[in-house]
């Protein structure tokens, strides 16, 4: 009976992934996955609920309620933090389970190594994710890479140290501590704009930790579900790295953009006013909006929607061009736009829209910088050279809504800002848009 439940659960998990492939069916995927999870958890009890005391049930109920509460309260701009936190919980849970199994010291040798692996990955994921969340909240600045380099250099002797000791239990806690420190240091040196890669990578690790926990307790469903999460995280990690033309190792090394601060311009940018932007837009036939992290910071998505409605009422075509690493996690911009009811059919990926810029009347760059920097195409010495960018500089006119001329994450100047076809509207993303909308009423 249990076997049949588990079989149904596995099949449901895989079907859920299949349904996730299209926005129109994805909400059903969630229902499928929930059902699969319920069956899998139920099967673990093996129809015998007498082995569990009240502390067990209270923990489940309280944390379940807390989960509901968090999920209802969280704002869509905070999704990167939430996903980061959940990565940490998933990894921490698997790591803790591995630790408990290791403490029992009755494990066969093969399971012993899997359990060590699960504990190390789980604890690394836990502490790394907590640091990632702190960074996303702006509570932690970049740490100098030398600390990480020193730690990495001393890691091999540190790992071999317990071999000299005799006590086995002590070395277990020692390894746990080492993994926790490794997680903290590794993520602490990575900058904010690399967070999409970090979050996706830790997501993958939380799945791998769960999968290896499945090996220890001999649960096939745990292995399957863990493997699915691991695969999902790896795919997203590689997609994000490709979108920056960097390797995972290069991202994890940290310190990107901290060296080459070069923010010099040969000439002054042309600055514009909300009124002029409104006039410019009202003469356009096609508009592409390029959102970036600045839109999330300013919570400007409602203003974006309002401007979109205004333009569409005037029969102006509006599209959204979303770079894969825009924001702080994969798909971040899409969720913010979906939140304000912007049709996902109007959201375009880099590959789909790049050929359209040259025939577009006005492009609005909203809080994005490096992902529209033409140096990625032209300057071989630039740290972002070779990175696929949105070719907004090819459009007829570009309006950049940005608070100042400050450089983006890569720490380099952006010649787009002084391009002949570009104008700067110096404003916070939300305020800038609201002023443009207001000006429309006067046009």
């Amino acid at each position: 009976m249990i076997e049949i439940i588990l079989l149904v659960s596995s099949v449901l998990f895989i079907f859920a992934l299949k349904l996730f492939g299209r926005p129109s069916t994805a909400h059903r995927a969630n229902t499928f996955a929930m059902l699969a999870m319920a069956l899998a958890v139920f099967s673990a009890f093996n129809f015998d609920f007498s082995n569990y005391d009240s502390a067990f049930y209270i923990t489940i109920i309280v944390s379940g309620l807390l989960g509901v509460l968090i999920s209802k309260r969280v704002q869509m701009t905070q999704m990167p933090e939430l996903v980061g936190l959940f990565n940490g919980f998933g990894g921490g849970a698997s790591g803790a389970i591995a630790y408990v199994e290791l403490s029992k010291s009755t494990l066969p040798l093969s399971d012993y190594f899997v359990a060590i692996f699960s504990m190390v990955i789980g604890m690394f994921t836990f502490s790394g994710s907590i640091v990632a969340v702190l960074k996303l909240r702006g509570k932690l600045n970049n740490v100098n890479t030398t600390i990480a380099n020193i730690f990495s250099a001393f890691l091999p002797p540190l790992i071999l140290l317990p071999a000299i000791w005799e006590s086995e239990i002590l070395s277990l806690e020692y390894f746990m501590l080492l993994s926790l420190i490794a997680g903290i240091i590794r993520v602490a040196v990575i900058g904010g704009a690399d967070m999409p890669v970090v979050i996706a990578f830790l997501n993958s690790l939380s799945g791998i930790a769960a999968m290896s926990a499945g090996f220890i307790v001999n649960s096939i469903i745990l292995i399957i579900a863990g493997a699915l999460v691991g695969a999902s995280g790896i795919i997203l990690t590689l997609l994000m790295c490709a979108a920056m033309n960097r390797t995972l190792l290069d991202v994890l090394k940290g310190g990107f953009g901290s060296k080459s601060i070069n923010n010099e311009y040969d000439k002054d940018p042309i600055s514009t006013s909300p009124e002029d932007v409104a006039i410019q837009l009202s003469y356009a036939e096609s508009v592409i909006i390029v959102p970036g992290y600045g839109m999330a910071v300013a919570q400007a998505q409602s203003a974006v929607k309002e401007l979109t409605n205004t333009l569409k009422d005037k029969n102006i075509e509006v599209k959204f061009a979303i770079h894969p690493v825009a924001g702080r996690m994969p798909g971040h911009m899409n969720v913010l736009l979906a939140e304000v009811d912007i049709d996902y059919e109007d959201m375009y990926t880099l590959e789909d829209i790049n050929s359209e810029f040259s025939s577009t009347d006005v492009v609005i760059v909203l809080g994005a910088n490096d992902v529209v920097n033409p140096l990625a195409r032209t300057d071989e010495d630039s740290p972002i050279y070779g990175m696929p960018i949105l070719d907004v500089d090819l459009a007829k006119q570009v309006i950049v809504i940005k608070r100042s001329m400050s450089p983006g994450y890569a720490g380099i100047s952006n010649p787009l800002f002084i391009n002949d076809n570009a104008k700067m509207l110096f404003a916070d993303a939300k305020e800038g848009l609201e002023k443009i909308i207001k000006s429309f009423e006067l046009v």
Partner: protein
Amino acid sequence: MEATFLLTLLITFLASFIGYELISKIPQTLHTPLMSGSNAISGVTLIAAILIYPEVGESQVLKIIVLTAIAFATLNIVGGFSVTGRILEMFKKND
């Protein structure tokens, strides 16, 4: 479900392969709900916690550690699915 180690490895490989193939087809628009959904699924480690909980024995420390794992995993499952549902609802109505 008892299985030999090799068979288990085979299942691991197949699950990873199917996962890789299916997830590669998921559009960029859905990458955030994909991550929050996989957060929920990584809470599946709750199963391991349920399996080992009755065997922890007398040690209060180990018991608390398992209970912590249970709390983390449950938070992931419930919170993860709930927030994923919320996001996917936003994509649904636009269809």
